[in-house]
C-alpha cells in the first residue's frame, strides 16, 4: 500500500495522543499525577493536540475534505465512521476532564470519572483506527490478530514515553509511570516482533490463480490493461524492496524499541536527574522517528490483493 504521509502522520500522531490521554486519564483519576494546572494543561494540550493534528492530517487524505462531517454517519457498519465518532466523542470526557484539571486543579470525583472515561474512549478510538486496517480482508498483512494489539500497545507505549518525559520536564517523579515505559516498550516490541514474523511467514489465501479463476502451475502477466500507472497501482501497488524493508525494520527496531528501552531504563534509574530528563526526551524523539518508520512499513509492507492482477505471485 502506498505509504501516504497524511495517513502515517494521522495514525502515529493520534496514536501517541490517545496513548497520552489514556494514561493521563487513568493515572490522573488515580491521583498519581501532579494536580498542577500547568502540568495538566501541557499534558492534555499535547495529547489533544497530537490527536487533533492527526485528525486534521487525515482530512488532507480526503478527496472532498469539506464533506468530512459525513464520515460519521455509518458508525453501525464502518470502522472508519466509528473511529470518527469515537474521536469526536472522546473530546467530551477529555474536555471535562481538562476543565477540572486546568481550571479547578481537580482530577477527582466527577473529573476522575471523566478521566477514566477519556482513557476508555481513547483506547476505543485507537482500537477503531486499528480495526479500519484489521478488518480489510484484502490485505493479509493487516487482516490478522496482531494489528489491533500493535496499534494499542504502540499507542500506549508512545503515550507513556511522552508522559514520562513530561513528568521529568516538570521535575516530577511518578515511579509507576516511569516504570511503565520499559514495560510498554517490551510488550510493544514483542507484539511487533510477532507481527513481523507473522507477515514474513504467512500470506493471503488468495493466489494469482484464484484471482483470475484459472488453475495451473503459474500465472504470468503478459500485458497490463494500461501502459502507464493507474490509480490502483499508485494507491495499492506500492512495493518496498525486501532489502530496503529489512533495513527500515532495523532502524525502526533500534529507534522505536532498543534505544528508547535503554534510555527509559536509564531514565528510570536516574529519575530526578538531568541525565534521566535528557534520556526521556531523547527516547521520545527517537521513538517519534521509530514510529514513523514502523508505520511507513506497516503500509509499505502491506500487499493488497489487487496486486495479484499486476504480477504479484502472492500477497
Amino acid at each position, binding site marked *: 500500500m502506498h505509504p501516504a504521509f497524511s495517513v502515517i502522520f494521522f495514525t502515529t500522531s493520534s496514536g501517541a495522543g490517545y496513548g497520552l490521554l489514556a494514561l493521563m486519564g487513568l493515572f490522573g483519576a488515580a491521583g498519581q499525577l501532579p494536580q498542577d494546572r500547568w502540568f495538566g494543561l501541557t499534558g492534555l494540550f499535547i495529547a489533544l493536540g497530537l490527536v487533533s493534528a492527526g485528525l486534521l492530517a487525515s482530512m488532507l487524505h480526503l*478527496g472532498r475534505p469539506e464533506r468530512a462531517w459525513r464520515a460519521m454517519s455509518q458508525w453501525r457498519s464502518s470502522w472508519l465512521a466509528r473511529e470518527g465518532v469515537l474521536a469526536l466523542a472522546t473530546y467530551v470526557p477529555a474536555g471535562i476532564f481538562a476543565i477540572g484539571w486546568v481550571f479547578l486543579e481537580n482530577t477527582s470525583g466527577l473529573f476522575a470519572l471523566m478521566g477514566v472515561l477519556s482513557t476508555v474512549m481513547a483506547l476505543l478510538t485507537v482500537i477503531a483506527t486499528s480495526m479500519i486496517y484489521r478488518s480489510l480482508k484484502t490485505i493479509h498483512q493487516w487482516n490478522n490478530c496482531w494489528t489491533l494489539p500493535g496499534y494499542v500497545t504502540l499507542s500506549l507505549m508512545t503515550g507513556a514515553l511522552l508522559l514520562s518525559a513530561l513528568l521529568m520536564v516538570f521535575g516530577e517523579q511518578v515511579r509507576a509511570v516511569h516504570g511503565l515505559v520499559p514495560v510498554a516498550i517490551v510488550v510493544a516490541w514483542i507484539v511487533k516482533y510477532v507481527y513481523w514474523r507473522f507477515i514474513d511467514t504467512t500470506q493471503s489465501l488468495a493466489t494469482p490463480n484464484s484471482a483470475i479463476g484459472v488453475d495451473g502451475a503459474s500465472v504470468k502477466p*503478459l*500485458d497490463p490493461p494500461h*501502459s502507464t500507472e493507474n490509480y490502483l497501482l499508485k494507491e495499492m501497488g506500492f512495493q518496498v524492496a525486501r532489502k530496503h524493508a529489512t533495513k527500515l525494520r532495523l532502524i525502526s527496531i533500534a529507534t522505536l524499541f532498543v534505544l528508547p528501552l535503554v534510555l527509559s531504563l536509564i531514565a528510570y534509574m536516574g529519575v530526578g536527574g538531568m541525565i534521566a530528563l535528557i534520556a526521556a526526551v531523547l527516547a521520545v524523539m527517537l521513538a517519534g522517528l521509530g514510529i514513523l518508520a514502523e508505520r511507513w512499513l506497516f503500509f509499505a509492507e502491506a500487499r493488497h490483493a489487487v496486486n495479484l492482477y499486476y504480477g504479484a505471485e502472492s500477497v
Partner: protein
Amino acid sequence: MTVDPKPATADIHDPHAKADKVDFSPSLGDEVKYTTCYMCACRCGIRVYMKDGKVRYIQGNKNHPINKGVLCAKGSSGIMQHYSPARLSKPLKRVGPRGSGEFEEIEWDEAMDIATKRLKKIRETDPSKLAFFTGRDQSQATTGWWSSMFGTPNYAAHGGFCSVNMAAAGLYSIGGAFWEFGEPDWGLTKYFMMFGMAEDHDSNPIKIGLGKLKKRGAKFVSVNPIRTGYSAIADEWVGIRPGTDGLFVMALMHELLKAGKIDQQYIVRYTNAPWLVIQDEGASDHGMFARDDEGDPLVWSTKDEALKPSTDITTTPALKGEYTLADGRTAVPSFQLVAERYLDEQYAPDAVAETCGLKADDIRRIAAELAHVAFEEEIELDIKWVDWAGRRQDKMIGRPVSFHAMRGISAHSNGFHTCRAIHVLQMFLGSVEVPGGFRIKAPFPKPIPPTNKPTGKVDHVKPGTHLPGMALGFPTEPADLLLKDDGSAVRIDKAYTWEHPLASHGLMHMVIHNAWKGDPYKIDTLMLFMANMSWNSSMNTSKVIEMLTDKDEDGEYKIPNIIYSDAYYSEMVPYADLILPDTTYLERFDCISLLDRPISSPHSAADAIRYPIVEPDRDVRGFQGVLLDLGARLGLPGMVNDDGSAKYPGGYPDYIANHERQPGVGLLAGWRLQDEDGDHMDCRGPANPNQLEKYLENESFWHHEFLPEHTYYKMANKGYLEWAHELGCVVTKTQIVFHMYSEILQSFKLAGEGHGEHQPPEEHRERIATYFDPLPIWYQPLEETLTDLDEYPLHALTQRPMHMYHSWGSQNAWLRQITNQNRMYIARKLGREKDIKDDDWIWITSPHGRIKAQVKLMDGVNANTVWTWNAIGKRAGAWNLDKDAPEAKKGFLLNHLISELLPARGDGYRYSNSDPVTGQAAWFDLRVKIEKCNADEVEESWPQFEPTAKPPHMVDAPDILRYGEEFKPGKKAKNAKDAKNGGSK
C-alpha cells in the same frame, strides 16, 4: 439477455437507493444518426447519439451486415478521435525548411490555386510526373479513377505494402482471396485453420465468427509464431517459424496425397486439375495447357478415350496419365504434376519439421484431422441449386474445414506462393465456396484473374490525355508489363516490370526511394493521401526522412513538390509543402463502393456511405470533394461538362449519386432507378437523384441478400453468375475454374527461360524462371538468403494491437492509455540465455540498422522470434502529444531496421525488399540479433528525433479531460470541485 427492464426500487425499502436518486432513464439526446465507422477499414455500421450538438455515444448498428451491433475498442473510442486535439484546421503552406513543421495558414482558394497551377503544368507536359499514392484510403474507386483521368500511371493505394500477396495469390487462383475478400463459413465450419493473423481488416466479423465457432465447439487452429489475441483462444497454437508456412502446407498436401484424401470430384469439376499440360521440355509452350482451336483447354476423357474440351460436361476427365496430343506431343493432367511435385519426399513431414520448428507428428496429425473433418464429417444442406451448365443438384455438399490467412503469410517475400499453396490445399479438400468451407464475398469470385489489365503503356501516357483504363490491373502474360522501349519502368514504383511482374497493387514502399533517386525517372509532385510515409508506413524510416529533405546540387528538393491530405498532425505533415486538411469521419461523405473493396458477405452484396453528422468547426474539406474540385479546375475528363463547368457542382455527394462508371453502374448499387419494364435488378440502373436519401433512410447502407441457392458454389452457380454478370462483375456466365496450376505464371517462366516476344533482360532471367513456377513453391525468404544467419539468428515481427489503428490511435485519449509504449517481446528462454529480464533495455540490430527498446519476456512465442506491437512508437511533437510522451521516449518503430532494398546480390544489384512475383513489401523477413544494454545507457528508445514544431493555431491539448461531464444526468456540474478545478485548458 435483458432482465425485467423496470426497477421496482420504489417498492423495496432501500434508503440508500432512495437517497441517491439515480436517473434510470436519462435521455441520450436529441438525435440518432447512422453512418459508417472509420476508426479502421472494417467499415462497421454505427449509430451515433447526438446530444446538444456533441457526440454522446457511438454504438454498433445492430442491423448492419458487417458488425451486427458490436463495436470494437477503436470504434467505441470514436468520440476521442473526432475531438482529437491533433486535428488540422486549415490549409497549410510550408514556410520553413521541410521537416521543420513551420507552416503558414492559407485560404482554400489559395491552396487550390497552388495545387492547380502545378498540376496543370505537369499534365500539359508529362502526366507521369505526378505520383498519387494513397494509404488507408477507402475511396480507391474515386482516387484511382481521378489519377487515370489525370493521365498518370503512377497511382497506387497501400495494397503493395499491405497484402497484395494475398490478393494476387487469391485472384490468380480462386477468383477471390483471403484478406477482406472472403471468410470462413463461420456458421458451419467444424475445423478452422488461421494462418498469420492478428486482426485483419474484417476485425469485427472475424471476432463475431470466432465467437460462433467457440460456441459450437468447432476446432480452431492458429498457425502463428506468437500466441496472443486470436491465437490465445485457439484450441491449438502452432508456433511456426516465420516464413516457413509454405513448407508446412506442402507437407499437409504431401500427407493428403499419400493417403489419397483428395476431393476428386471437386477438383475435377471446379479446378483445372484435369487440364492437360503440354510436356515438351524446351518448347516455347512447354507447361502451357493444350487447347483446342477455340482456345478451350483439353482434358482426357476416360469414358470417351479422347481429348475433349474442358467445358464439355459429358466427359470423365482423367487426373493422371500421359496422353498424346493431336500434334503427337504428350500432355499430362495438371494434377499429375501437382501430385508428383508434392509427393516428393522433400515435402514429407519429417523433412520439413525442423525448418518449420514443428514436430513431424503434429503435421501428420493435423493432416489427418483435416481429412477426417473434410471427408468423414461432410455436411449436406438440403438446398437445390443449378450449376453453370444447367445441371440440377439436389444438395449442397460441404467439407467443413476452412482456412483464412493474412499478413503473416503475405508480408514475406515467399508469401505469394505460400498463399497459393494454401489455396491448393483448400482445393484438395474441396472446401472453397462450399458449406462449412471458405467462402468468397461478392462481387467476387471474379474471372481468374480479373479482366482489367494495367494501363500506362508508353503510348497511353501522353500530355493532356487520360489513361484508357485504370492504372492498376492484372497482367496475364509478359506482354502486359508496363515497360518503356528501353526496358525501363513506366511506373515510378517499377510495378509491372520484370522485377515484380504481378505487382497489381503497386509498390507504395518504393515510391519515396525511387522518386528521391530519380530511378527510373524524376517526378515533380508526390501527392499523398492518408498515408504516414515519413513514419510507420515506410521501411527504413530514418533514411526516408532524409530522402524527403534531401536536396540536389541546385539546392532544390530531390522530390520537388509534396502535396498531402491528412486530417491530423501526423509525422508526415511536416514533410509536405502543401497540406489539404481533411475532415474527420463524422464530418464527411464517403462511399464504400462495390467497385472498391467489398463490405459484402458471401451471402449478400452490400455497400454503404458516410455522411456528415457533425459540421466541421474548422476550415477543412473532405478530400474526395477536393479532388473533384481540383479535377474540375484542371478540366479533367469526367469532371467537367462540355462548357468547362464543373460536372459535380454538388461536390462528392453529387458525384457519388450521379457518376456512372459504365452505363447503369455507379458507385452505389442500392436504389438505382429501374427502367420502364422494371426488369433490372436493383443494383444496376440509371442514377437516382434521391439515392443518398434512400441510403440515409436505410441507416446508410444497402444490402442485397442472395437466395439460399445462390450462396454457395458461386464460381459455378448459374443463378449467382447471372446476377454477377448483370452487375458486370463477370464477363461471361460460364464457370470460373480455379487455377490449381497457373498457366499465367508458366508464361512468365517461359519468358525467363528465353521464350516468346517479351523476355526479361539477362539480369532478371533466372529470377523470373525461378519464382514464376506454375505450382506453389517454397523458398527461404529472400533477405534471409543474403544475410548471415549465424550473426542474425532471430526473426523480428510486428503485430496489430486490436485497439489501435496504425499510427492514428495514439492521438486518442482513451486508446493511448491502453498502449502508449511498446515493448520488444522475447521468449523467456532466450531471455535466460542472454541474461535479459523484464523491463531491461536491449539493442536490436539488423544488417541494416539498430534500435533500442525495452523488453517483455513471454512463453507463447516461437523461440527464434522477437516481436512488438506495430506503430506505437511516435515521433516527439507529432499528434499534438507532449514531447515527452511515452510513445516518443520509450516506444519504438521496428521500421528503422527494415530496408526497402535487399542486400546486394553477386553483381551488386539490389532488388526491392519485396516478393519477386507481386512486389509485396516483405516486412516480416527481417532478421535481427539482440544484446542487453549497458547499465549506464539511458532508459529511452533509440533513435530519437528532434521534436517537430506545432503548426499554427493547433489547439493546446488539455491537461485534464472531462468529456461527458455535461451529459451527466440530472446532476449537472454539481460535482465539479471548484477548489481544484482549473477547468479544461
